[in-house]
């Protein structure tokens, strides 16, 4: 752990209120840490050092005057550079993106973070337009993994996850369309939530696939993710749901190891997954095997809808500015031409079919648990120069994105090389707080989320 850096948002909030820490000191530590490591890790596209200092001073002043905006008051938070903010441009990590898109108005989620007292430290790096792999030929930082700088932080919200893992910020927001919060969270060993589709307003977020795009919190722990979620979710019925549970004693947890559906499996994966299940059982959960219904069709639907909608958004620009896109993103979007209108409709039908089956499953189990991925983070060399199909075929995030369900990813025991491995816990639509509470209970009896990279 970086010396003097709080363990998480909750601890920082406590220290600030007890007078042992100020927001100004916390933000200075955040800036110093970025100065120290960000050239190597590549977390930020743009830093807002001066406005962050001013926001921290205001946060301290408000607290001194008795105005307490809640757990995020004075807390440094990073924002994925696909969300607009008033301080600077929004690049979506692409030369094809108009950096002045929406005229530097805050995205709704950024506005809500500010209202909650958060200090926005900058815009974090990502995969171009939330899609694909890093492109070393483009003038943007490559999000590297703090556990091994030769490895990928994951995508697409790589900078958000690596900034939390490397102690540059205490929390961040990312977006998830097919796994873009959960993949980097899992590879970097932190915690993140793909929110129920529609729970967090996406105004001010550059679209990828309208049917799936969601915004979610990233932090060291599930409890800290809950603090961010409370600040950013919509006030309406979908966002305002609170937990129906307290603890995991007697909870029924469906499990699917997805072994047959994985293209590659790390030698340590099976034992780490079994250990996590054992921990939940010891905490009083009832674990039952429940294969995910219509798995192949739902994953297929994710790619068909995501690439079709992505192509719909980008096609006019791809026609005229092909080379401004990075190689990976432009090729992935172009893949949308492979699908017919009938394919798109069948993909939407697959969602309806799976919703019915999954609704039945959630009548029998409270939440469902799978690996997030069955491998640790790949090397950047293998990803960029090699064949990424084994990595893609080992990610199990698209299923829950297709169905719009809240899904939290969190670390379990690492690989033998010390790279993070992770699980994901999903629940019915609207049960965002419930799945975070399960993760919180797991983290109450384990220490995987407390591991820090040797950076």
């Amino acid at each position, binding site marked *: 752990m970086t010396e003097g850096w709080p363990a998480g948002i909750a601890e920082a909030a406590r220290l600030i209120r007890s007078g042992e820490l100020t927001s100004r000191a916390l933000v200075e530590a955040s800036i110093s840490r970025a100065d120290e490591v960000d050239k190597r890790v590549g977390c930020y596209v743009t830093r807002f050092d001066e406005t962050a200092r001013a926001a921290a001073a205001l946060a301290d002043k408000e607290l001194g005057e008795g105005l307490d905006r809640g757990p995020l008051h004075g807390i440094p938070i990073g924002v994925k550079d696909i969300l607009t903010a008033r301080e600077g441009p929004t690049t979506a990590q692409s030369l094809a993106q108009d950096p002045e898109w929406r005229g530097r108005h805050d995205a709704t989620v950024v506005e809500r973070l500010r209202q909650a007292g958060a200090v926005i430290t900058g815009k974090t790096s990502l995969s171009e337009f939330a899609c694909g792999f890093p492109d070393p030929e483009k003038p943007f930082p490559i999000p590297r993994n703090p556990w091994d700088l030769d490895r990928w932080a994951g995508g697409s919200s790589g900078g958000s996850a690596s900034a939390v893992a490397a102690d540059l910020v205490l929390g961040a927001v990312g977006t998830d369309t097919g796994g873009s919060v959960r993949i980097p969270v899992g590879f970097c060993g932190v915690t993140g939530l793909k929110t129920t589709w529609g729970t967090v307003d996406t105004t001010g977020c550059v679209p990828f696939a309208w049917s799936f795009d969601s915004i979610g919190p990233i932090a060291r722990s599930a409890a800290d993710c809950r603090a961010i979620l409370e600040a950013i979710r919509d006030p309406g019925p979908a966002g305002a749901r609170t937990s129906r549970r307290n603890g995991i004693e007697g909870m029924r947890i469906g499990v699917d190891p997805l072994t047959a559906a994985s293209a590659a499996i790390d030698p340590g994966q099976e034992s780490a997954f079994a250990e996590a299940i054992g921990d939940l059982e010891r905490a009083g959960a009832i674990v039952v095997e429940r294969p995910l219904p*219509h798995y192949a069709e739902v994953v*297929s639907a994710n790619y068909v809808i995501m690439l079709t909608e992505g192509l719909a958004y980008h*096609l006019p620009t791809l026609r005229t500015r*092909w080379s401004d896109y990075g190689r990976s993103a432009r*090729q992935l979007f172009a*893949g949308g031409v492979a*699908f017919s209108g009938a394919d798109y409709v069948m993909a939407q039908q697959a969602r309806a079919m799976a919703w019915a089956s999954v609704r039945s499953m959630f009548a029998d189990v409270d939440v469902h648990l799978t690996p997030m991925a069955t491998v640790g983070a790949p090397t950047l060399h293998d990803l960029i120069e090699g064949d990424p199909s084994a990595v893609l075929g080992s990610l199990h995030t698209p299923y829950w994105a297709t169905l719009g369900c809240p899904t939290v990813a969190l670390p379990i025991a690492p690989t033998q090389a010390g790279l993070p491995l992770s699980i994901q816990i999903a629940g*019915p639509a609207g049960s965002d707080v419930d799945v975070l509470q399960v993760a919180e209970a797991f983290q109450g009896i384990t220490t995987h989320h407390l591991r820090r990279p040797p950076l």
Partner: protein
Amino acid sequence: MSPMDGRAALADAGLEIPDDEIESVVAWVTTAAAIAGPLRQCPDLLAPPLVDGRAWQEFGG
């Protein structure tokens, strides 16, 4: 989808791919086409109603 069909689909979309990249793009397009395979081979998909707001609401969204 054959490579020839892939090239045609890219051209129909108005995408002009540089010569040194066209083969890899066509290869990805033909791979992507195969991704839709499970949907094309699932007769059950003809049974449920077309997804709409009601289906999502019934799911709890």
